[in-house]
């Protein structure tokens, strides 16, 4: 298990464009959006969170472009399947590494931006946990979509994944709404965490089924 963790993280760390690129794209989106809204107005605060969710979604979409493609092309997936007769652990760890190297940095950056936009440290408690959880869910689902459209281009993967993400986006919207009214948001965060805990286990199973079908 730890070997796998080391190998996967090594593979991603060596590909600088695959993990640093998306983080920089996220940074660029977050920097460029105040230019399109009138600076330092209240409007900025109102639309800030929707920009944050959507840019994290787009970042994940860009970063997961070729999550399985290179391993599929050079035969790593097939090799691993023959050796261990299961792809579950490999996919679980692959997704976890992506979250570690892309999901957590963009959560930290996004929290930093939300604190600086609202000028209030309390937005840390809204932005940070919800971005941590939602980015993990996004990574799982985009990995699924990209495994379905493995060698058919990432546009198809994005097309079939986006509709599945709407429930998460609705939940995120609810969190911001409740926080604006001063209600409790921990219940919604726990609901999202519950969804994540189901997804973490189920999605790698489905992806390994799909990848096996691809390898047949």
């Amino acid at each position: 298990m730890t070997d796998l963790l080391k190998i996967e993280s090594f593979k991603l760390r060596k590909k600088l464009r695959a993990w640093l690129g998306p983080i920089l794209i996220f940074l660029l989106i977050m920097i460029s959006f105040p230019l399109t809204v009138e600076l330092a107005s209240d409007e900025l605060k109102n639309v800030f969170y929707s920009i944050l969710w959507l840019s994290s979604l787009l970042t994940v979409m860009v970063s997961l472009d070729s999550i399985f493609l290179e391993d599929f092309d050079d035969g790593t997936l097939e090799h691993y399947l023959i050796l261990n007769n299961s792809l579950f652990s490999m996919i679980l760890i692959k997704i976890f590494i992506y979250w570690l190297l892309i999901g957590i940095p963009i959560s930290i950056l996004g929290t930093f931006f939300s604190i600086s936009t609202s000028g209030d440290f309390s937005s840390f408690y809204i932005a940070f946990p919800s971005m941590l959880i939602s980015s993990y869910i996004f990574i799982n689902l985009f990995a699924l979509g990209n495994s379905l459209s493995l060698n058919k281009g990432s546009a198809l993967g994005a097309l079939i994944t986006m509709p599945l993400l709407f429930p998460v986006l609705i939940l995120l919207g609810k969190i911001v709404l409740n926080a604006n009214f001063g209600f409790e948001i921990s219940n919604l965060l726990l609901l999202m965490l519950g969804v994540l805990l189901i997804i973490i286990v189920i999605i790698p199973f489905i992806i390994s089924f799909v990848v096996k079908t691809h390898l047949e």
Partner: protein
Amino acid sequence: MLKKLYHQFASPKTYVVLVDKIYPIIFYTSLITYVFALIWGLAFAPSDYMQGNSYRIIYMHVPASFLSESLYIAMAIAAAIFLIWKVKLAAYIIKAIAPIGALVAFLALVSGSIWGIPTWGTWWQWDARVTSTLILFIMYLGLISLHSSFTNYEKADKFISVLVLIGSVNIPIIKKSVDWWNTLHQPASITLTDKPSIDPSMLYPLFLSMLGFSGLIICLVILSSKVQIFNREGNKTWVKYHV
């Protein structure tokens, strides 16, 4: 006995023979029912005291939106059957339903927009029900494009059924969107548990129109599934004898 029947029905040949027998019955009864319901609804049902005559598009809008969700549920059941028991017929039926589902969802959206002009004062509103039906429409298009991007049909069948099953998490959200959010779209008037909040003089034609429209769409599904079967099993001998 039952198991034998089940296995027989799972073979495309028995399916086509059976469907050819019952197709005219379903088609003519549902056509007569729908025409009858339309005449009743458009000419004889009383007009609404708030909306006047414009509500009469309900006899087309409600069956279409009802079917756009039901067809997805039917696809999800077929996908489960295909993945668990590897029944090929179920995969053909998924492929056959997808474009029809997209068509019906589109009809629901268009008739809803037309209804929106006199009642809401706008033909489009980013309301929960409308948006979720649009998402459903896009989901159908995604399914079609996923299946058509693979030349190996056996792989494509597995992928499309996985996607249908996962996409079915959105169905309860679409169904419940009008209850969970405060939106412009009214909550459902007919539910299984409560007394309908719509007057019987409008309810009976609505019910008949739902039955008739569903029958017509089922006929469309049958025709489309026959196309799929003949396409995929075209080199089998029974097809040559049958056609």
